[in-house]
């Protein structure tokens, strides 16, 4: 086990998979000569050359389409969006081409590719640079969506995403790149998509979450523990495929759940999780499942307002106590 940052874990995953499979290439803005806007691809240009690590113009729709086209003929593109905020420009190629290709070609042409980059708010980047983009990638069948929260998950899941034969939107936490953690050295350390991770065990209430919010959930669980409340913290890790069994298991255990996510409430991921629990675990519930999300407003620049707009641990604690009626 090595201590790695989330950034370096991603870098290792990329390097190992590129080493392993010559069809894997990385393309995006500033990924090569600049080592990536967030330095995730540091050193890869030198190591793999400028065909396999390719800088692009600022043409999101165009290079997303390039990735899909290259995947149509068997390459395994990893297309980096400098941030997913810019991927709205490319969404047509994701939804209309990548997600539909296998189906509309009658199973002839699959799209083994990864769209990756940071998603979610960083610090004071304002309204246009702070989107948690899961919903836009989840609604249409055909794409898989992965949101790692730790260095180990980042490495194991990115390797799985690159090896996966379907389009995967791999959403990294813009604020997680410097987070350190234990990462297995094993070159074949792969975390299968669709397996949630119970990041903390406690029987009183379930905090279900994904992505960077797993850390907030753990903070909240810590705070609750001081009041003698033990919380399960279930990190879904992958949103499609989704580990429904793990969700039902924790709800069956605690009978009370809160969904925590970084993004907006209206059709945020939590809405789907709540409706799954409603349909499949209604009788297990001792209280309605509550949701903690970003305030339902564009992210403000002002620091205090931004902090207020984020879903913080205090709001999670409050929601947990509410479902516990304490």
């Amino acid at each position: 086990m090595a201590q790695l940052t989330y950034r370096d874990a991603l870098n290792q995953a990329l390097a190992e998979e590129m080493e392993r499979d010559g069809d894997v290439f990385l393309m995006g803005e500033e990924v090569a000569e600049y080592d990536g806007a967030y330095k995730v691809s540091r050193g890869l240009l030198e190591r793999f050359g400028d065909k396999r690590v390719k800088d692009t113009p600022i043409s999101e729709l165009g290079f997303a389409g390039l990735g899909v086209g290259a995947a149509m003929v068997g390459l395994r593109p990893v297309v980096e969006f400098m941030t997913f905020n810019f991927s709205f420009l490319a969404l047509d190629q994701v939804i209309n081409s990548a997600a539909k290709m296998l189906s509309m070609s009658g199973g002839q042409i699959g799209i083994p590719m990864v769209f990756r980059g940071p998603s979610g708010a960083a610090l004071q980047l304002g309204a246009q640079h702070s989107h948690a983009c899961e919903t836009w990638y989840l609604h249409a069948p055909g794409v898989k969506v992965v949101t790692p929260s730790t260095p180990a998950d980042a490495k194991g899941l990115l390797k799985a995403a690159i090896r996966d034969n379907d389009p995967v939107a791999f959403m990294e936490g813009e604020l997680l790149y410097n987070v350190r953690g234990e990462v297995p050295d094993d070159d074949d350390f792969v975390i299968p998509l669709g397996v949630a991770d119970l990041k903390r065990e406690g029987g009183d209430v379930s905090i279900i979450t994904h992505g960077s919010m797993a850390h907030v959930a753990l903070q909240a669980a810590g705070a609750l523990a001081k009041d003698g409340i033990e919380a399960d913290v279930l990190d879904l890790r992958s949103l499609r495929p989704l580990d429904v069994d793990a969700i039902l298991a924790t709800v069956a255990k605690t009978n009370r759940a809160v969904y925590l996510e970084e993004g907006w409430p209206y059709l945020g991921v939590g809405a789907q999780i709540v409706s799954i629990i409603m349909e499949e675990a209604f009788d297990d519930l001792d209280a309605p499942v509550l949701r903690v999300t970003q305030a339902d407003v564009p992210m403000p620049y002002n620091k205090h307002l931004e902090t207020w707009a984020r879903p913080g641990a205090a709001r999670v604690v409050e929601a947990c106590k509410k479902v516990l009626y304490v």
Partner: protein
Amino acid sequence: MAETETAAVSVVNGGPALGGFSKEKLVDLLRHMLLYRRFEEKAEEAYAIGKIGGFCHLHIGQEAAAAGCILPLRPDDYVIGSYREHTQALAKGLSPNAVMAELFGKASGSSGGVGGSMHIFGADSRFMGGNGIVGAQAGLALGIAWAIHYRGGDQVCVCFLGDAAVNQGGFHESMNMASIWKLPVIYVVENNAYGMGTKFSRMSDTEMVQKAVSHGVEATVIDGEDVMATYAHIDALVERVRGGNGPQFVDVECYRFKGHSMSDPVSGTYRSKEEVDERTENADPIKLLRDRMFTADILTREELAAIDKEVRSIVDAAVAFAEAAPEPEVDTLYKNVYSEINPHGRLFFDGRGR
């Protein structure tokens, strides 16, 4: 840059009839175009009686573009097109049976009946599909060309677009990247003068070749009703592109004899009956080739009749095949959304037992 430009843009004219084409070759071109014509006529009939549904965009009048731009290619070259792609699929080697069955939505169709008229695919023939989003194929073609370049191959990718697609921003992004990376893509714009009801000249102040050249893509204009000229021109371009000289753009001037789709009147709204009649009379690529061959005495009416009989029987057989073919099963739907059902987790959320 004025130089670059004039250097790059050049109009290629028909050239002497039969110039360089053997009789066999000409008969082959004629047979192909007749096949496309009869195929689309049958599709039109089948649509009228409800055997084909949805949107159906016929290629009638534009056959020379399909034959002239695709027949010069090798089997390992790639072709991708728009939703007006039935004949390009045939030209690249899909069987009339598979394409007709797809239009009928049958399991034996090229996409198993799930794709439909706008989504004909033939991976084995390297026909990379019909695309319903105007211009999207320019991005995909770029990727196919990138893959060729990445692997050091000498194939080319021919990307068919309509004239209206030239105004899509993504098309410009594609041309720019193809140019800076010298990718082996040939953008073939089937310039039938209209995008639905809109004349290209209403939506652009300049010639489309200028737009390609402005990104560094060499661009030419060709008479797309003249299959010999088109074939010869593309044949030469393909060799240039194979040689690693970067992308090409070709404005293939042609005319759509039918409505935009089955619901669009042939004439009377955005184009006059006179205009359509005149073009149908004077710009029919099949008539043009036929008459050239007649005058040059390398085709007799009997031979022509025989060819027509042959292609009609192929098309009749395709319809019979499509009629007889089975409907696709419901579970194919779920089989082809993801290429692998991950061993863990749920992929489908419709509660329909999957």
